[in-house]
């Protein structure tokens, strides 16, 4: 659905759901999710959601980033080697 603009070279490699993907400098983790065509499922009903507002308000882009659950992916700049997974349902809480 989404494609990169040609004038912005994709130079940063991240892993989305374990698959390598390149995004431009300054892109957020949510952009990587959009490019990969993935989204989260909600904590209560498990309904599918995708990144939406891209400005930190709607919480629809929740992702597990480098092992940390429920991150707002649109607020996290992509870094080389970043591991991004869509948040599936409620995160776990409790003793390790």
């Amino acid at each position: 659905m989404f494609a990169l603009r040609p004038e912005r070279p994709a130079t940063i490699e991240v892993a989305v759901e374990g698959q390598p993907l390149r995004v431009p400098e300054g892109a957020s983790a949510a952009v990587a999710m959009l490019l990969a065509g993935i989204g989260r499922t909600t904590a209560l009903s498990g309904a599918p959601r995708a990144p939406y507002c891209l400005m930190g308000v709607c919480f629809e882009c929740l992702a597990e980033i480098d092992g940390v659950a429920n991150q707002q992916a649109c607020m996290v700049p992509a870094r080389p080697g970043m591991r991004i997974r869509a948040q599936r349902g409620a995160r776990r809480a409790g003793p390790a």
Partner: protein
Amino acid sequence: MSAPRTESFEAIVIGGGLVGAAIAWGLCRQGLATVLLDEGDIAYRASRGNFGLVWVQSKGLGAPWYQRWTRASAGEWPRLAADLATRTATDVGLQQPGGVHLCLSEPEFEARAERMAQMQREAGNTPYEYRMIRAPELRDMLPGLGPDVVGASFTPYDGHANPLRLLHALHRAFTEAGGVYVPEAKVEEGAAAPHDFAVLAAGRRFAAPRLVLGAGLGNAELAPCFGLAAPVRPQRGQVLVTERAAEILPMPITTIRQTQEGSLMIGDSIEEVGFDLRQTPPVMQAIADRAVRSFPWIGELSIVRAWSALRVMAPDGLPIYDQSARFPGAFTANCHSGVTLAGAHALLLAPMIAQGALDPMLDPFTAGRFDVRAAS
């Protein structure tokens, strides 16, 4: 402009929060044509900031009548929740699995044990089951307790609910039962005579033989107009809310509960700061610190919301219920436990008001207790 025509009802309830709405719906249930006057968003609206406990174990130390009233309300709650579910298809999220109060030091544990023993003594012939539980056993009940937790008190009577859904369901049940809800209706004028009341609000004039003041902090100003007293003051409490997580807490704790949706609500503070709704980082920090000492894993969760609200507090911290001696038919109801006491307000207090007399069990809650001359 001519005076508005009078709209006649069998009961006027002032205050559209949990107390007013529970009583108004209770009066409707008794078959009374009831109007509910709600001030609007300029009101302090304690009912929008509730923590959501249906809590028994620490209520009414030294005041067994309050303990009995709280127990009675917790006992009515399942009927309230079921009735609201049937009438409004709203699940108010009631769970009453029992609850614990954590103690983070030996002195806290000893003080709690003493308090619970006194509560049991004061319960008289009513069974009051509780247990003081030491940390090793507690660790099997609650996951990931911190090393600072030395023990807890437990009673089977405690629980929690969703306060916003409760407020919504009460309003919906009220209007669906034929009650008339009037928003943006701050009472501007009142006229009182025995069993004959009129109020001006929202440019309309309402009259009824019964009038109930359930306006929270607003009662302080309204009460004298109707031959009543409600010397209540604001007491601030702050609450933190975490992101949603999979269910982990099997029961509510005095200051930590996991909502049905998975959020952890963390409270609370007790602050005498007047009508000041600000939040303060040192208090928020103290709240978070105690939560993390109780359950270190809470520190991994993000706080996504926080708010403060003003409790409606009488000088002795107990509710106020009264019928005016000068103007019979006028009642007050004030408390800081609008969720816990919703069962009693809708299903016990409202029928008393409908019948025109408060049960003697409510006598100790009169505001007359604050009157030095009357008390001497």
